[in-house]
């Protein structure tokens, strides 16, 4: 049981309560209600159909593939799939919203309650309950900084399909919130329903933050009544794990200060400024829009077939939780290693390829520590790794059969990273083969003892001083001597 995250205030301890609305762009070649292409990198307004631009008389036609993606995601969240759902209009004016309304699902979402198991770094896990998932259109993009007087609008994103995944207020620390998004991302990417690219805004979160006193949250969970919780503020569109944590920390502190000064937290929508690390007010509850939701009369209620849902379910890939369990069972990995591996499907696939017939624990270490560390430093994804999975496997094989030591392996790894090719060839080329020939080692030891009789005498009194001898032998052999063999021979010759 992990201890509840608390913030110390002047008047005592505070806890935080977090609920997230994650917007995930549906991986689809075309938009939710038009045939226009979806993609990154097109010129402004190049991916806009007559429907997306809301020309007079244009009508939306639902993209069945986006529905399939939502169902697939719902299944991945172990959620209720609603065979009957409905599209509603959310009405408001803004230049990047050409229709004057967003088509969304308000009352009857396509996916109902589900849950996500989230893994913490310490190997423990917790559950976030999913309230719903619904499909909706994204808006276009307003660009305010091209011209001091004008705003430019790019409608390429207008009409793109989003899944809004709403959690219950089940996260209690900034780290938990980030871990939840990380896990959600892993599920979506595994399912192929969202590319998970947070930098491009394809996955972003609205974070609801409130603070309460120890014990209040438990009362809320017991009764389901929000009166036990503090007033929440919603921080819009946060698009990195780091920003999510920064925003929560700042916002919780801000709320605590208000409360400790005897004030009241106003329910409002806020924006996170990554530059300043602050949140600032966007609009208050009073300024909140009346969206005048009503069923979109251009679209029929969405009815899907139970058989079709079954078909989608049958085609689901192995989900992160199942993969984690399998990695632990099949490869004997720790819960921590397994959960790090599943947080990125590509990393897990890399590992599994490299681990074929090898010591899995060793492969996991080389993949997660050495390779991932180096990739991270260079800002590379594992799919762009200069070292292939097969070569990591081959490297581990050389360690396993005693050709090289773990220490030498690091040198070999450096050469591999530099693009010198397969590990065996590198070992050969640089003469890095471990010396297991006891004759050569014995000769080196004899020479060493002969040259240092005083030290050889002293070590008999102080056996731990053998380390100096080991070091010297390794030095003599250019690090290639098998450490175990060196030890054994030294002990015999020194009479230890």
């Amino acid at each position: 049981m992990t201890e509840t995250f608390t913030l110390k205030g002047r008047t005592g301890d505070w806890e935080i309560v977090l609920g997230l609305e994650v917007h995930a762009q549906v991986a689809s070649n075309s938009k939710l209600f038009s045939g226009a292409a979806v993609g990154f990198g097109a010129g402004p307004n190049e991916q806009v159909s007559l429907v997306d631009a809301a020309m007079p008389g244009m009508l939306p036609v639902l993209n069945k593939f986006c529905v399939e993606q939502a169902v697939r995601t719902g299944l991945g969240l172990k959620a209720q799939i609603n065979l009957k759902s409905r599209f509603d209009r959310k009405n408001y004016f803004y230049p990047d919203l050409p229709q004057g309304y967003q088509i969304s699902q308000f009352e009857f979402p396509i996916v109902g309650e589900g849950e996500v198991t989230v893994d913490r770094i310490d190997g423990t896990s917790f559950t976030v309950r999913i309230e719903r998932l619904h499909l909706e259109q994204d808006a276009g993009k307003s660009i305010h900084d091209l011209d001091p007087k004008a705003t430019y609008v790019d409608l390429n994103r207008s009409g793109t399909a989003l899944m809004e995944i709403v959690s219950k207020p089940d996260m209690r620390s900034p780290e938990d919130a980030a871990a939840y998004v990380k896990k959600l991302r892993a599920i979506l990417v595994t399912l192929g329903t969202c590319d998970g690219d947070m930098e491009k805004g394809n996955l972003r979160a609205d974070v609801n933050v409130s603070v309460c006193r120890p014990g209040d949250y438990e009362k809320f969970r017991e009764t389901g009544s929000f009166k036990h919780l503090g007033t929440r503020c919603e921080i819009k569109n946060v698009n990195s794990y780091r920003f999510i944590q920064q925003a929560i920390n700042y916002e919780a502190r801000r709320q605590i200060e208000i409360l400790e000064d005897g004030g009241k937290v106003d329910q409002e929508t806020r924006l996170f400024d990554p530059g300043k690390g602050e949140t600032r007010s966007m609009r208050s509850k009073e300024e909140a829009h009346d969206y005048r939701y009503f069923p979109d009369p251009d679209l029929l209620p969405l009815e899907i077939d139970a058989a079709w849902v079954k078909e989608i379910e049958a085609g689901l890939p192995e989900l992160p939780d199942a993969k984690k369990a399998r990695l632990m069972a099949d490869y004997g990995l720790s819960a921590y290693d397994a959960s790090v591996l599943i947080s990125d499907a590509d990393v897990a696939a890399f590992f599994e390829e490299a681990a074929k017939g090898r010591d899995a624990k060793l492969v996991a270490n080389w993949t997660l520590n050495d390779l991932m560390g180096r990739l991270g430093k260079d800002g590379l994804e594992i799919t762009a790794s200069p070292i292939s999975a097969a070569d990591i496997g081959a490297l581990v094989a050389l360690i396993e059969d005693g050709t090289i030591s773990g220490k030498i392996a690091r040198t070999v790894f450096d050469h591999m990273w530099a693009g010198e090719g397969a590990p065996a060839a590198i070992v050969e080329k640089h003469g890095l083969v471990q010396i297991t020939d006891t004759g050569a080692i014995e000769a080196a030891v004899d020479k060493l003892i002969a040259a240092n009789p005083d030290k050889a005498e002293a070590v008999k009194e102080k056996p731990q001083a053998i380390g100096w001898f080991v070091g010297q032998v390794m030095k003599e052999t250019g690090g290639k001597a098998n450490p175990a063999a060196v030890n054994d021979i030294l002990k015999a010759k020194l009479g230890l």
Partner: protein
Amino acid sequence: MTALTSLTLKAALDGLKAKQFSSMELTKAHIAAVEAARPLNAYILETPEAALASAEASDARLAKGEAGALEGAPLGIKDLFCTKDVRATACSKILGDFQPPYESTVTSNLWRDGALMLGKLNMDEFAMGSSNETSAFGPVVNPWRIAGSNKSLTPGGSSGGSASAVAADLCLGATATDTGGSIRQPAAFTGTVGIKPTYGRCSRWGVVAFASSLDQAGPIAKTVEDAAILLKSMSGHDPKDSTSLDIEVPDFASFVGKSVKGLRIGVPKEYRVDGMPAEIEKLWQDGINWLKEAGCEIVEVSLPHTKYALPAYYIVAPAEASSNLARYDGMRYGLRAEGGNLTEIYENTRAEGFGAEVKRRILIGTYVLSAGYYDAYYLKAQKVRRRIADDFEQAWQKCDALLTPTAPSAAFGLGENSNDPIAMYLNDVFTVTTNLAGLPSMSVPAGLDAQGLPLGLQIIGRPLDEGTVFSIGGAIEKAAGFAGKKAERWW
């Protein structure tokens, strides 16, 4: 020349096929008639060059024996239909000189079958109105006048331009749209035939939206048969409209002239409203008698929720309109007024661009959808709508079609009701029910009142049973002997 424009669509198509005259001759005659009839203000845009070019192409196809079902027939198109590279305004200032880069499905279907366009027809702004007086281009004048009077009468609305143009022989037929009676009431006021088909028969793609769940396109024509020919071409499944019905389109014309013997005709008692003119009461009775003579069985039916239809309609239609018209924001096309900031640009654009009636409906619609009012108005109206549909379902147990008056009065003077929105809305009292229930319904001219003005009867059919509606319409047309009656030409 007169002879060619006074032809029915059917007669003209036959004449073209028989090479009695060319589409060029037919089109030229109509272009001249349109020019001569400008005082009626039926056309807000004439496209004679394009019409003649189309006529030439049609004549070539006719010569090669490749004629489509409407080959060479000059038609008028309500300005609510988007027409590629031809100005489409919905008769609102807010669309400015908007030229759509696309063609509506309904008009595409007509051109596919060989028809050609004479121009765009006047209408109430965004189809909101019952007298054509809300048009940004000024009202259409009804070719019919009270005997011995010069008073300008309304052709009804919103498809007033379509109705006047057909009544005055300014085209062989016209497209129209009907959200609460906008095809049928103008047809009744001008002695023409208008049918609103089952919701979903005609694609709404490319038709400027008023109230999506109620809007349906249909023809206004000189005869029941002409209406059947036009509707056949206009109809058909369109994957671009999610509410379009994927169902076979019958040969509607084959139902015209078919015996109505044995059909059970329902007469809904709730349509006998207070203050209905005796002449309309009498006309209704005439219709009943004609159908009885033709072998129909007359049954009294009850549609108990009828009185709630008009209030429900005036909640649902404005609610949808308030959202549908949000796209006219001055950002991408049409009018844009100046303003110091975004809100001002919105406010000024929409204040300048929309007329009073459109603004009234946007306000009503915004109100009924607002938090705290939604349940009391919009949701309640949707429940009423369900009840009204159920009423009809009940009636179909007892009858095959319903007969009612189309409108509670004959054409009234321009300006007479324009300051009283409620009086204006009452024009739709007999027609809105079928929009709410999505049923096919036709107005067929049945006689003249004492002042010499045309009156219409409405036939309501089962869902998708336009065929029976056409058969009954044909029977009434024949019995009423109205065909050939025309407004005396004064323009």
